[in-house]
């Protein structure tokens, strides 16, 4: 990329990136990589990572669609979780320095790549699929536009993990508290008119940790790259549980 841009339009940028290779490093460290970025164009953080990889070929990170759909490149960008592919440098860089770390709270496999097993274990617990008891209809399970509208703000989650790994309650109890992403998905199926396991789903959440360990810290809301509101979803599940118990 740098070869196609005139030199006078380039500016230096320090990329401070978390490095850890379990095969050769005893402990993690931060490596400063000096790169040049276009002065007249706002790159995304993912572009910067590709530029850095030209210099440090061993630098590892996940990516796939590069347009905020697959959720592969969630990472901690200057202290705040986000997607590298949709975060512009102009928003992220402070004092000409970009600091990239893996998403917090999950074990690091290598560099910016984390082990998402714990995250998906919790996701699996909410049974993220339609549960029906009636026989399958001939064609499809129909839904009115109003019923479909209830899923807005819930179905858009791409499971990048930015919210759950920004949540201190998830750091403290990653095996007991389901985390904002899983709970958002849980509500997505609780409010789905086609689902027939609402009571069972609510029963599963009515313990001390799964749902109620949310302390309303709201990090999930401030970091969600899709602009979703997991805290509101959690609050709505609480309302459903509370109304049910009256």
């Amino acid at each position, binding site marked *: 990329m740098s070869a196609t841009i005139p030199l006078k339009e380039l500016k230096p940028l320090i990329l401070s990136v978390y490095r850890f290779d379990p095969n050769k490093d005893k402990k993690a460290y931060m490596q400063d990589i000096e790169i040049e970025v276009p002065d007249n164009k706002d790159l995304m953080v993912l572009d910067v990572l590709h530029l850095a990889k030209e210099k440090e070929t061993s630098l590892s990170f996940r990516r796939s669609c590069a347009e905020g759909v697959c959720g592969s490149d969630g990472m901690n960008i200057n202290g705040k979780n986000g997607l590298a592919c949709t975060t512009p440098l102009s928003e992220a860089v402070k004092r000409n320095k970009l600091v990239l770390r893996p998403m917090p709270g999950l074990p690091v496999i290598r560099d910016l790549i984390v082990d998402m097993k714990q995250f998906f274990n919790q996701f699996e617990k909410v049974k993220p699929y339609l549960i029906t008891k009636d026989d399958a209809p001939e064609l499809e399970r129909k839904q009115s536009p109003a019923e479909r509208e209830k899923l807005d703000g819930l179905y858009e989650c791409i499971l990048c993990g930015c919210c759950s790994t920004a949540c201190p*309650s998830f750091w*403290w*109890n990653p095996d*007991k508290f389901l985390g904002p992403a899983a709970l958002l998905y849980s509500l997505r199926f609780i409010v789905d008119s086609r689902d027939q396991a609402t009571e069972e789903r609510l029963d599963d*959440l*009515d*313990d*001390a*940790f*799964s*749902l*109620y*360990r949310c*302390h309303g810290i709201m990090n999930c809301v401030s970091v969600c790259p899709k602009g979703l509101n997991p805290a509101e979803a959690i609050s709505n599940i*609480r309302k459903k*549980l*509370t109304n*049910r*118990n009256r």
Partner: protein
Amino acid sequence: MKGIFGSGTRDFLIIRISSLILLGYFLFLIAYITMNSPLTFSLWNALFENILMKVFTSLFLFSFCVHTWIGTWAIGSDYLTPDRLGSLGNPIYKIYRSLCAGIIGTILLWSLIIIW
């Protein structure tokens, strides 16, 4: 774990209801002190001699203790875990809970003796 009082929802509701009782008690006291300024010992004594005030204060004390019991449990189960403290996690948690139970129980008993 199903919660201190049988379910997460029940714990959640008890926390909210008890906090409303605590708020109501404090607002009442602030209003009473403001409306009876300057407050004298005899006025204060008469207030707490009233049977309704004794019942309200007892309700406040029970709410305070239940609220604190659930709250301290939540804090302990966030921070004092084997994940964070290794093999010392469980013993430290048990000591912490015993201390909480002792302090909360003493406050409740002592306060009720004073009030009644």
